[in-house]
């Protein structure tokens, strides 16, 4: 009982003193640790003062003299300044927590750890950090840094006519977002691209999933022979790298010399179809191709599930006089869906961002009048074009933000339903 009731207030004093880094540790008589924190924080601000100074100035103004100040460089430095500040604050918070904890040890009358013991503690508790640091540094630079950069870019007027070093880039607030919904060209393009993205995602994914399940059930029939060879053939479209297949299809669907028009359709007596020049037929072909590319994965997954369903379930159903369709509807389908639902959802998010098939098949084309995206462009391929072909960086960043919000909401919704969020050691 006694030990649980602190007799003094050293923890609070130590915490207060630690506002100047290291002093709380001095108060706790941990002189080495105290001077370590003191020197570290002072050195931190001395070493980085210039960088922080220029960084924050650049971040707020994005430069003042054209040709001399490079707005984008300044923005990069600004983000680095923010990250460096975050590290500084982290060290400072660790300093506060450490002072408070050791103060409490004294309050509770526990023995203060010796220098030797502290050293061992440091090695022990430092090991996971040592192993995590390389990975985290990489993530900060190639993943988090670009994300911050996109967020900032979406609030600037950075585009081809307005690019450094000749011109300065300026903060324009949410003008890019407003423009996308107000300027006719942008609104029309956004709405048509967005609606096609949704239609594409649902049609292509649902059809590929349906085909995969259908074929898996078909091949799983007891009476069927040559199962092994049939399954191998059905996996082939997955085995060949998608970019190769898509480019091959681009050749097959070519209006003038492709095999579809020249060989197959001519053989059955149908006139050539304008696959590459009519938006409707491009979209139609794309959905067919995605079915071809996507069904084997579903096929394999569902086959795995089907083989695990016990036979007596079906035998019982037969005794009850169930038809084929009833067996599928009441037994097979629910079990398959339950086992593969998370994977099915990832198929939808995958197709939502399926740049490869859209871009490699017809470059997002054909061109459509009255908008700055092609007839089969989805959001991600439109962003690509805005960035690399039209240099509309600010607008592209704003659209990226809209797209990311959609993807992340779906992902969060999905992960809430899976185990990952409920893992007890995460919460």
């Amino acid at each position, binding site marked *: 009982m006694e030990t649980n009731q602190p007799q003094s207030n050293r923890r609070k004093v130590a915490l207060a003193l630690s506002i100047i880094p290291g002093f709380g540790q001095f108060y706790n008589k941990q002189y080495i640790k105290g001077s370590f924190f003191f020197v570290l924080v002072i050195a931190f601000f001395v070493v980085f003062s210039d960088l922080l100074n220029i960084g924050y100035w650049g971040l707020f103004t994005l430069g003042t003299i054209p040709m001399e100040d490079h707005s984008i460089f300044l923005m990069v430095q600004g983000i680095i300044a923010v990250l460096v500040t975050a590290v500084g604050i982290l060290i400072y918070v660790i300093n506060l927590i450490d002072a408070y904890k050791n103060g409490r040890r004294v309050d509770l009358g526990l023995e203060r750890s010796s220098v030797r013991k502290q050293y061992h503690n440091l090695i022990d508790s430092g090991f996971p950090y040592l192993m995590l640091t390389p990975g985290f540094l990489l993530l900060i630079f*190639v993943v988090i840094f670009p994300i911050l950069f996109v967020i900032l870019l979406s609030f600037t007027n950075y585009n081809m006519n307005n690019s450094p070093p000749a011109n300065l880039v300026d903060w324009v607030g949410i003008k890019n977002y407003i423009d996308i919904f107000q300027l006719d060209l942008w609104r029309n393009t956004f709405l048509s691209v967005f609606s096609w993205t949704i239609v594409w995602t649902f049609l292509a994914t649902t059809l590929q999933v349906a085909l995969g399940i259908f074929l898996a059930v078909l091949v799983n029939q007891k009476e069927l022979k040559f199962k092994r060879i049939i399954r191998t053939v059905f996996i082939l479209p997955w085995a060949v790298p998608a970019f190769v297949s898509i480019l091959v299809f681009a050749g097959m669907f070519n209006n003038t010399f492709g095999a579809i028009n020249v060989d197959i359709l001519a053989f059955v007596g149908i006139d050539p179809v304008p696959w590459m020049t009519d938006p409707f037929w491009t979209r139609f072909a794309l959905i067919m191709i995605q079915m071809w590319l996507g069904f084997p994965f579903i096929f394999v997954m569902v086959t795995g599930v089907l083989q695990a369903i016990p036979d007596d379930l079906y035998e019982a159903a037969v005794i009850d006089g169930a038809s084929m369709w009833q067996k599928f509807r009441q037994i097979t389908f629910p079990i398959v869906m339950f086992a593969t639902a998370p994977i099915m959802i990832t198929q939808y998010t995958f197709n939502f961002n399926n740049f490869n098939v859209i871009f490699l098949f017809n470059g997002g084309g054909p061109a459509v009048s009255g908008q700055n995206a092609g007839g089969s462009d989805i959001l991600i391929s439109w962003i690509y074009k805005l*960035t690399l072909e039209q240099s509309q960086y600010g607008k592209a960043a704003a659209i990226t933000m809209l797209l990311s919000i959609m993807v992340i909401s779906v992902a969060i919704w999905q992960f809430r339903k899976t185990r990952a969020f409920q893992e007890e050691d995460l919460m």
Partner: protein
Amino acid sequence: MSMKKQTLIRMTITYLIIFFMAVVIIYPVLWIFGSSLNPGNSLSGSSMFPADATLKHYRELFDLEQSYYLLWYWNTLKICLITMLITVTMVALMAYSFSRYRFLGRKYGLMTFLILQMIPNFAALIAIYVLAVVTGLIDTHIALILIYVGGLLPMNTWLAKGYFETIPKELDESAKIDGAGHFRIFWSVILPLVKPILAVIALFAFITPFTDFILARVILRSESNFTLAVGLYNMIANNFGAEFTKFAAGAVLIAIPISIVFLSLQRYLISGLTSGGTKG
């Protein structure tokens, strides 16, 4: 009798559907293979089973003076292997820390990974492009490798962490009592036991850069630096009809080895994908 008849009809329809699907799957494969054997350069006048079949397009691809194809193959393999090595090393270290240690910031680290794995790494396409230009890393393989590794880390660390946690902690503890240090426990106790999941991750880390088009297309500028995906695209994007048969030969040379490797390893791939899907 009627039962038998029913089964007969059902199986006939089944075989018909399977035959139709098999044709749909195999037709493009035969078509591209046939095209690659045609002597002409363009597709007009070519046929699926050319009477005067020739291997000259394959020879052209293997001639370094006429084509960059071998160089692209080498670039792709190099990028894939380095990405794989770095990814597996980093994932093993991070998954070990997350599964075996309880430390300040662990929860936030895991949450960060969970959120980052939701964002596809080409979402920051513009940033990657602009940053690569301003840092002078555009058109380098190192930039591409780092982006691939960064994109692979979050999801695969979660995947590996899940597997690491199935290894009983008593093993570590008894090794510790025997006097093994932190790194030693990792190296000689844990690592041999988690080989299966590391193999799956290695496979992912190899396939992802191999099949990626968009990032390679954004970063790589000069033809001698291209990967296979970008190079093959360029072959037909620049002058579609004119080089199609050569492209066909290039496509065949990628499809054959990769499908063989894929078909022999698919069991591992599927086991990884299923656990990845349910674990998040």
